[in-house]
């Protein structure tokens, strides 16, 4: 600030005020702004940054909605938590932190509940792998049972609904009919 002269500062302030007034005049005031919900600030390039969005999609909003920060802040635009969390993500990335470091900061501050999915370590591994292990175990049991059943079926003499007097020709015609239906 010390580098800016008084004249320069005044010029900048006037320009900013002029821009705001110009914006207001150009855009026009609405009848009752309160009806339109929470006042918004203009979108910046960082708001649309895919990297920021990717980080925010991994972090849970603390408002209790169960959504990630990005989805919550862009859903109804009424949440009072997600804009602050968004600013926190911007602040951390602005400091040069990587995506993982930002996530780690959130976990340090809010606990593991800050993550949209639990980290794959410790007890959480059960969360990820129990369904897969259960399905694989069930599949193994099923295959074993199927083998046993098919063995038992093979051991039992085959009973058919065909009359005992069916000739080989009739059986062959039956097979042809079945094939024709299958075809």
């Amino acid at each position, binding site marked *: 600030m010390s580098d800016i002269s008084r004249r320069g500062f005044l010029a900048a302030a006037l320009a900013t005020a002029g821009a705001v007034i110009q914006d207001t005049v150009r855009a026009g005031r609405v009848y009752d702004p309160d009806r339109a*919900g929470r006042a918004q600030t203009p979108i910046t390039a960082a708001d649309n940054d895919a990297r920021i969005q990717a980080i925010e999609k991994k972090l849970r909003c603390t408002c209790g909605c169960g959504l990630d920060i990005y989805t919550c802040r862009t859903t109804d635009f009424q949440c009072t938590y997600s804009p602050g969390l968004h600013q926190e993500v911007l602040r951390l990335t602005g400091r040069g932190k990587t995506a993982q470091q930002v996530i780690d900061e959130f976990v340090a501050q809010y606990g593991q509940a800050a993550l949209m999915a*639990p980290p794959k370590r410790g007890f959480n591994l059960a969360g990820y792998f129990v369904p897969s292990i259960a399905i694989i175990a069930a599949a193994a049991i*099923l295959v074993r049972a199927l083998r046993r059943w*098919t063995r038992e079926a093979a051991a039992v003499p085959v009973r058919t609904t065909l009359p005992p007097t069916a000739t080989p020709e009739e059986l062959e015609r039956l097979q042809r009919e079945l094939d024709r239906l299958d075809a």
Partner: protein
Amino acid sequence: MPLLGHLSLWVAFLVGLWGAITGFVGGARGRGDLQQSARHATFALCGALAVAVLCLEVAIFRHDFSLQYVASRTSRNLPTFYLWSALYSGQEGSLLFWAAVLSLFGALVQALTSRRHRAYLPYVAAVTSLVATFFISVMLFAANPFQRLPFTPLDGQGMNPQLQNPGMVFHPPMLYLGYISITIPFAFAIAALLTKKLDAEWLVAVRKWAILSWLFLSIGLILGMWWAYVELGWGGYWAWDPVENAALLPWLVLTAFLHSVMIQEKRGMLKKWNLALILGAWLLSIFGTFLTRSGVIASVHSFTESPVGHFFLWFLLFAAAATAVLYVTRLPLLEAEAKLESMVSREASFLFNNLLLIGIAFSVLWGTLFPILSEAVKGTKITVGPPFFNQVNVPLGLALLAMTGVGPLIAWRRASIPNLQRQFAVPLTTGVFVLLILLVAGVRDFGALMAISIGGFVLGTVVQEFARGARARHRQYGEPTPYAIVQLLARNRRRYGGYIVHVAIVLLFVAFAGMAFKTETEATLRPGESAELKGRDGHVYTFTHLGISQYNALNRQVTAALIDVRRDGKAIGRLRTEKRQHVNALGNKTFEPSTEVGIMSGLRVDLYVVLAGLVNGTEQAVFRFTINPLVWWVWFGGFVLVIGGLIVLWPGGAPVAIKGSKAPFAQAGYAVKLEPQA
């Protein structure tokens, strides 16, 4: 009227208790008088609850704000359309709706069930009455819809704005109907266990009810997705919310049942499994209700935390224990009548299909409950959100989609190698062809590649099945192809209706895959300014902010933004997105402002615009623009699913070989008449 409604609840409670006792005792002792009394009790129960519903609706329409329920859910200026839905928009009213519909189904079962299944009816009356009595007791002792306020306010608080949407008028009752109607197959299963009549007869009695439940759940789920998409404003339709998961669980289990029941009907196998599925589906429906109403897991859907959660938990535990004991004691009576003859058979493929469906159900249940488990075991609060569910369920879902195509291609009992080659050639070629087209088109998303190419394989299967059936009819009866297809559907509704459902599943999976190509941006626009967004369909969409208007409607103050939309510079229409501040009849603000999304729906993409708000109270506004590919196909897929389900459900048309306990032999799926050779 409120007093009459309250009294009706007490009458219903006593009648329900009587019906349950006389049904069980009459069934156990074979006393015809008690059985008849239980039957009559179901009709009386239905009548008493109908009076209670009528009383609550009259109170709602008369704006009787002396009732806490009416005052907290409605206001004088609430549109009439939503006054109807106020009946089930809150905890107490939805419990009444549930009990009333269950009593209606219970009475219908008694009136419509054919004579040959009469042996089950006393127990069916007992179970339906008992479950309805439980719901009535919850109302009487914890959540009474006829509870009065100490004073009568001038106006009510109004209905939550998010519920003021046509989707919410139809989505909850459809889901409730699905949940509630599962009680009927469950009641028949309990009756079969108690009477020890465990052959395929009880399946005949419940099959239509099971399909009906599945159909209602399907419609409820699709409508819920539609409501979430058009109302909530986050641009998606499924968030793996605990309550969404709770609705999906019985749907998955019922889908497994509708497949495995065919094996019992045709081969007399899987008796234990089918019973377990029906019992499990009902328990999951009660579990879902517990989740929704207890507040035990945070969800956007949940009713506020209330003591009814304890009622549901104890009821669930009691029902699960009683059911398990009954089931285990009857296991020796549930031996299969035939043996599986080959690993490569329709029966085996259905078993793997069941494994996947139940596996998905388990992983969804596991993921939903894992936060509670983690907190109980480790004391660590965690979140299990969409990334977890997608990671676990997408591979399982793709495998299930593939099984949808594999099952119909494998013969009953035993498939030969030449038969397999002949059956798989066209569908596999179709799937590979689709995959190559996608790769050439530059699609690299693995999930989307798999979903669409496996979808191609399944469609190949369905088309082949229809083509072969139509060709056979053409050969046999000389019918032209379109007529032959209609005849196929008419004469074997279950099989070909099922194939229509498979087509719907393909459409849904392809549409889900489309969300991998979603693009979105936020922009601040003054009137006349534009934002551009390039979709993955190759087109550039230009959104021009035309201006803001504010006006009053019946129960809200509206701030609307009008957006001109162009595709590659060519005008394609206008979108309107709103902020709504709801007010009561006195002009008092009732809720936080809500958002109404602007959607332009097309076959390829949906253009989805949300008005975030205004800058400095001016017409300069913040918007979120999203291009959602293939969403239209979700709704179309849902429509096809319902059509397929209705075809399956429609009475008549399908002679089904029932494998009774006395039938001596296992049979193949075809009946072939051998004519004398010329």
